[in-house]
């Protein structure tokens, strides 16, 4: 078990990291989904 005096900082660093990368991933995927219906597949090099 993590010592109680360290737990807030240790767990907090993981929570902040995962929350921020999760928010970034969500924002990037949402942006792609907003734009994709306005562009034909022929113009998307990845399709």
């Amino acid at each position, binding site marked *: 078990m*993590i*010592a109680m005096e*360290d*737990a807030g*900082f*240790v*767990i*907090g*660093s*993981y929570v*902040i*990291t*995962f929350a*921020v*990368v999760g928010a*970034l*991933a969500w924002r*990037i*995927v949402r*942006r*792609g*989904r907003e*734009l*994709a*219906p*306005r*562009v*034909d*597949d*022929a*113009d*998307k*090099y*990845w*399709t």
Partner: protein
Amino acid sequence: MTASLAPESTASRSAGTATHATRLIGIATIVMMAWTAAFGLLFSPADRDQEDAVRIMYVHVPTVWVAYLAFVVTALCSAFYLFRKKHGLGFDRVAGASAEVGVVFMALTLITGMMWGRLTWGVYWQWDARLTTTALLFVSYIGYLAVRGLGGTHHQRAKRSAIVGLLIVIEIPLVHWSVKLWRTLHQEASVMNPNGDVKIDGLMLFSLFIGVIAFTLLYLWLVMHRSRSMAMEDLLEDEGLDEALAARRAEAVAS
């Protein structure tokens, strides 16, 4: 460049920027992230000196690794854009996407580093060489993103941001070796140090390795999606410009 964007177009339009490859990378990332949390918080042992504070290392080191990687990729793509005969905008988009992701990871490095510093040094921040150069690197790449946001054509954007990208990447060796060049509070690298010796072993090293793999996969996934969004943004911007020019010409003919 003219995209097929007419609302009445019947061409197929997929829902987003995902492909089979990004889905596979995404699933692998989630699994590896779960392992990072499990090994970092539960399975790895506490350090003899730092005790449980060392667990922050398993997110702090991978975030700075990804930030360095992202900025080096930005510089390489900038060089490819500038020095190849065919100035492909694809390189510029990957450079921009990589810098965006790198800035977020650099911010996470600073935040997790401050939390680790609070536990080990008793303060969140010290104007120590490593922390100061890292903050400078972070601000430099915010500047790079600001330069990308200036007006002009796509190639003007690509050219000026590529020059900036190549200039500021030289800060990375300064940040990495700052602990050697100056007397600092920050410890020397435990793995990627100039002597090449690894100062941690066993389960701690394995946990760190899992974290680095997880965050590298995440970086790859984020850059693939973001660069595809950027390609669509450029297409739509071109189309908007074409429409505005056509409307202006029609106005001129009518008057």
